[in-house]
């Protein structure tokens, strides 16, 4: 392996082969349009294998240096420039490995009663994967924007796969609208940078020097554009609508992976293309990220629909990732590269663990939905008895998502908090004072995430079934299980060996901020994570797990040895209340009640409470986003108003239209004549 070739192939070649394979499989989907068995048994499992290939290639690319390729597709004289550097390779690895699990699952997930033919679904799905990979590989603004649009359109058609319901169509429309708002902003951002650089390739753009004003303009446009895709406040509204509408594997792909392409884009623009960040960019990103995280987690605790709950939880996670990235920008702006590397590592770790555990949780909701036909938490319960596989795998996802040790979510939060504790070194007194408050918000968010996850798992899988029909819910099928097991295993692995993962992230932070944690981490044994020095902080998740398991096992052993360990089954006691029904359990609304009460200003609530003497009491509470009524509906009304005003021009008489042409001509002549 002298020049990074293996059997004559570079890492980028392997990745391109994988993308081509995805496209070929997508075309096969069009050929076998209505053959479900073909899609389920061949296309999706093969797609999963290709995902593994892509992930492996990306890991290899992460270790070797940057590689370039030129694809002669597109317009004549305008080829696609592709480049595999460590940032792209990291996100490609996430894409490959997470999509492998999701594709495997999808093979078992397809059902006969879907609106979209299975072949067409497979086509859209694989095209979506390929376009995401190409977005990550793109090395010029042209290829990036084309692939970004392909990605947006492919995902739009996947979201409206069940297009017979009006709700789905309107959710899809909202998604498309916000996606295109974002795309325009990204295009403008690239335009600003490219005009100054004189070329639209990323390499030239990174070399160009922008005045602080134009650099800031480009950054703000990038924030708007990628923020819309990632679901940052106030552009988050499409997420909770699109996720429940989309078929489950699509939700998992969008939440687990597509959001990451937005993170990738933001990092690419703010740290690579605009290589001289200003401190207020970081502060803005940090503030926006924290607001998003807090907003997302509070709403997720109040939801009663499984997928909406997870969608809001994704908003929370994206907020935390943005906060980490913002902190990295802040440190970078002050030239504190080591700390920037720590914060960036935290953000990337969050991104990686979120890709796996959130995909896992979304897929779990798909299994529950297929087994019970219910998405509403109020009609679920007790599924751990009928669907043990799904339930226990969901348990892993829930612990990871709640940020509990020793699973993957905790490592990201741990690193993020560590980097916050270092901030008092910043040469800006005002920021130094605010940063502790920021740390307080982060810990509040992670504690609330625990609440939301307990609610999700407890209501869906524990307790008594809230509907009689749940008793014959069937567990996931083999392929579904395999996909879930793969994602759960990665969530556990990411939690247990943070040292190896951080060493893999090291080239990325070296590329973006010029420093990395790899060397410090490599000095310690693999089971002990030490980002800076042992005196400062250390965390050994593997030791943790072994210690905890040993303590539990020894306790169990001793209890069973020393005492008789007899067990008897009986009816639940419940303080001696003789009549217990499943309706007496806390409902999803009930579990949301304390949050609604404490964080009341966050919600726009409409309540109907029963009177004390009602014969048939009804309780109703509706929760809405303030942003709908405060921002989106006024804009929609304004647009409608303007459209109506513009509509007055249309008189329907040809003479009037000729007059318009004449006037236009006159104005143009005036302009040209001057």
């Amino acid at each position, binding site marked *: 392996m002298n020049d990074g070739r293996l059997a004559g192939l570079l890492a980028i070649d392997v990745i391109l082969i994988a993308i081509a394979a995805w496209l070929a499989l997508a075309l096969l989907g069009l050929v076998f349009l209505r053959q479900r068995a073909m899609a389920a048994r061949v296309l999706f499992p093969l797609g999963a294998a290709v995902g593994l290939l892509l992930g492996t290639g990306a890991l290899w690319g992460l270790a070797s240096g940057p590689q370039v390729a030129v694809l002669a597709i597109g317009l004549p004289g305008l080829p696609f420039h592709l480049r595999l550097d460590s940032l792209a390779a990291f996100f490609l690895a996430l894409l490959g490995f997470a999509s492998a699990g999701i594709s495997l699952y999808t093979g078992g997930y397809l059902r006969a009663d879907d609106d979209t033919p299975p072949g067409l679904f497979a086509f859209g799905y694989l095209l979506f994967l390929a376009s995401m990979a190409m977005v990550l590989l793109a090395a010029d603004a042209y290829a990036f924007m084309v692939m970004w649009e392909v990605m947006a359109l492919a995902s739009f058609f996947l979201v409206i796969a069940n297009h017979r319901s009006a709700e789905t169509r309107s959710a899809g429309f909202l998604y498309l609208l916000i996606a295109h708002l974002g795309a325009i902003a990204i295009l403008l951002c690239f335009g600003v940078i490219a005009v100054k650089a004189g070329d639209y390739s990323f390499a030239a753009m990174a070399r160009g020097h922008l005045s602080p004003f134009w650099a800031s303009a480009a950054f703000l446009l990038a924030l708007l554009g990628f923020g819309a895709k990632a679901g940052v406040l106030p552009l988050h509204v499409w997420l909770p609508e699109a996720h429940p509408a989309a078929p489950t594997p699509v939700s998992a792909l969008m939440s687990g992976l597509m959001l990451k392409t937005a993170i990738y884009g933001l990092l690419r623009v703010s740290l690579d293309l605009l290589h001289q960040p200003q401190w207020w960019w970081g502060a803005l990103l940090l503030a926006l990220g924290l607001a998003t995280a807090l907003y997302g987690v509070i709403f997720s605790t109040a939801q009663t629909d499984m997928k909406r709950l997870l969608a809001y939880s994704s908003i929370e996670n994206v907020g935390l990732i943005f906060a980490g990235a913002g902190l990295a920008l802040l440190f970078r702006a002050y030239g504190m590269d080591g700390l920037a590397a720590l914060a960036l590592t935290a953000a990337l770790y969050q991104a990686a663990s979120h890709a796996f555990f959130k995909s896992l949780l979304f897929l779990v909701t798909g299994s529950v939905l297929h087994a019970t036909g219910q998405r509403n938490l109020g009609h679920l319960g007790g599924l*751990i*008895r009928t669907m043990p596989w799904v339930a226990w795998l969901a*348990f892993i996802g829930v*612990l990871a998502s709640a*940020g*509990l*040790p020793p699973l993957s979510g905790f490592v990201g939060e741990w690193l993020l908090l*560590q980097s916050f*504790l270092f901030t*008092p070194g910043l040469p800006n007194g005002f920021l130094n*004072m605010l940063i*502790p*408050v920021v740390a*307080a918000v982060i*810990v*509040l968010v992670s504690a609330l995430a*625990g*609440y939301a996850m*307990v609610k999700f*798992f*407890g*209501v869906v899988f524990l*307790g*008594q079934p809230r509907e009689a029909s749940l008793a014959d819910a069937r567990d996931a099928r083999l392929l579904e299980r395999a996909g879930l097991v793969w994602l759960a295993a990665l969530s556990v692995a990411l939690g247990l060996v943070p040292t190896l993962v951080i060493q893999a992230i090291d080239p990325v932070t070296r590329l973006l901020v010029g420093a990395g944690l790899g060397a410090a981490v490599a000095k310690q044994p693999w089971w*002990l994570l030490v980002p800076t020095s*042992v*005196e*400062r*902080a*250390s*965390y*050994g998740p593997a030791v*943790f797990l072994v*210690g*905890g398991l*040993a*303590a*539990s096992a020894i*306790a*169990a052993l001793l209890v069973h040895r*020393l*005492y*008789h*360990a*007899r*067990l*008897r*089954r*009986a*009816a*639940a*006691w*419940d*303080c001696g*209340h003789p009549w217990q029904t499943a309706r*007496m*359990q*806390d409902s999803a609304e*009930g579990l949301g009640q*304390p949050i609604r009460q404490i964080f009341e200003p966050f919600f726009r609530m409409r309540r109907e409470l029963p009177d004390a003497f009602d014969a048939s009491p009804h309780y109703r509470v509706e929760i809405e986003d303030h942003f709908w009524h405060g921002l989106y509906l006024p804009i929609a009304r304004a647009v409608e108003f303007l459209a109506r005003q513009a509509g007055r021009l249309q008189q329907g008489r040809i003479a009037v239209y000729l007059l318009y042409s004449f006037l236009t001509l006159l104005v143009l002549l005036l302009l040209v004549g001057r």
Partner: protein
Amino acid sequence: MNPFGLLAQSFAVLLALTLAPLLKGWIDMWRAWLGNRSAPGLLQPYRVLHKLFHKESVLADTASPLFRLAPYAVFGCVLLACAIVPTLSTDLPFAPAADAIALVGLLALARVFMALAAMDIGTAFGSLGARREMLVGFLAEPALLIVLFNASLITGSTSLASIVETLAHQQFAIHPSLAFAGIAFALVSLAENARIPVDNPATHLELTMIHEALLLEYSGRHLALMEWAASLKLFAYAGIGLALFFPWGIAQAQSPAAMLAALPLLGLKLAIGGLALALVETLSAKMRLFRVPEFLATAFLLAVLGLLVHSLLGD
């Protein structure tokens, strides 16, 4: 890891296991005396544990494996937490495996297990208790973490062992931020250990119970483990409090003599702390549940105020 370190670590764990019920007995005894009742005796918690272990466990029909797993998981988590907190010595082989943040995470893990187990049976009280426990948790957990951050900012480390070593070596200096953190910590530990202004461990009153509602369906050995875990958690909190605010006297080298010397001092500190807790519990009245968020928000804000004071005043 040398054999002595391993021995010292096992000694610390065994000490926590044995001292934790004793601490509970001590507090209960004082509570009884201060309430003008005759006390059950210092060793009562051991007798209760012994009795519960001997009893047969009655398991609800609807219980899933998670319900049976939870007591062991909770016990393991809390015991691990006790092993991490430097009560006797800062130089223990297990200490680097987890810092203050991981410790809080570990306690949160135990809480999640308890809440899920309570929801598992599907009774009205179980899920009620779970909801309340998580309510207390999501407010108390950040407050505790911020308290620990106060100490971290002073000492420049999140490792508990380093915090103790730095604080104990300093000249006797009052850090204003630690004063805020101290009050916040006191409030948090009252809430987290189901003590009186927040919860009353001695009653099963439907309207107010939190901790007991979680344990309603447990019996026999499972209940014993849960009770033991609760007293271990109290011990761990006492350990954290002593480490942050009274770090003097904790051994800092791996020598049996230093550890043995630290032992009586630890006993004295725990005795005083337990007495103070009993006093607080006797003097205050149980709050309404709706007031608990305010109580904990106060703790949270005090701790954040401590951080602000630190960054305003510097070291």
